[in-house]
């Protein structure tokens, strides 16, 4: 199970709006809170358009065992740097935490090889969640299956699988 850590970037699912604060499910033992002011260019008049069920990519500012975790979608200089509401369509799925760390390692061959197959958008959350969007639903599902299978495949098996797909 995922344990929130300060500074980790995660994908959360909005479960409730409670006044000025959103409750997000991040896969930990309790929901995280996200203030509506923690977005780039958000003011009291200019609120972000967040609905229940939306996906948000953000990082933890408070995450210890004694307090409820708190997230924000801006970094220390006030810019969003890729964080915020994740767009429409795409596919969210869960993988093990070990695979996430492998994918986020500096020179990850899996993502390089996949990008040669089809162009796609990818968001990786340290809480084990990955969001993928490619041009068609079929391409998206193929990428999802390969990422899920990467856990158990060796490098050769992966290259073989990708070669078969790009041959098709």
């Amino acid at each position: 199970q995922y344990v929130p850590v300060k500074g980790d970037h995660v994908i959360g699912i909005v479960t409730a709006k409670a006044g000025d604060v959103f409750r997000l499910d991040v896969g930990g033992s309790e929901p995280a809170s996200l203030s509506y002011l923690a977005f780039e260019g958000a003011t009291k008049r200019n609120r972000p358009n967040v609905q229940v069920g939306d996906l948000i990519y953000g990082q933890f500012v408070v995450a210890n065992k004694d307090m409820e975790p708190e997230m924000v979608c801006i970094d220390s200089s006030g810019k969003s740097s890729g964080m915020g509401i994740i767009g429409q369509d795409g596919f969210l799925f869960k993988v093990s935490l070990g695979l996430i760390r492998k994918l986020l390692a500096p020179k990850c061959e899996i993502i390089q090889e996949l990008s040669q197959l089809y162009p796609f958008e990818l968001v990786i959350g340290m809480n084990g969640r990955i969001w993928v969007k490619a041009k068609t639903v079929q391409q998206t599902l193929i990428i999802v299956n390969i990422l899920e299978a990467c856990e158990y495949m060796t490098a050769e098996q992966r290259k073989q699988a990708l070669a078969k797909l790009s041959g098709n």
Partner: protein
Amino acid sequence: PGETSVLAGLYGPAEAKVSKELPDRAALEVLLRPKVGLPGVLERSREQLLRQTCEAVVLGVLHPRTAISLVLQVLSDAGSLLSCCLNAACMALLDAGLPLTALFCGVTCALQPDGTILLDPTARQEQEARAILTFAIASSERKVLMATTKGSCSVEEMQQCLATAQRAATTIFQFYRDSVRRRYSK
């Protein structure tokens, strides 16, 4: 080859109800469901035994104000049920990745009227025995986490049963290792 089997499911650490949460550690709850019928007093007492054993190994201070639920369903009972439940509980804790100080295993000894010690008795052997002792033994230096006795025996006999159980624990821990190895190497 044993026919006693127990299915264990572990949930957590999850959000606890305000009435049940502890401010500095995780609240562990065990539910034991018998094969037939509703849970009765015997199940309740076994749940408490399991809970106290698990609380001794789980590092609850890492997850304050959370609830960890362990649900055990008895699938078949052919003797040595309590130690089967202990083993299932430990494997569930291990599989869920909860922080533990040590692993534990359950071993049942039956003391027969003539003094011989039987390990992991069947239901029939349990009935004929003079005393049945169940021990929960930790993996660190084979320390005793829990001991429960049904029937009467002398102190020396209990010591002998304990020593036998500690030796048997090694086999069970090896089984844990093999199972985990098989699970994580496809």
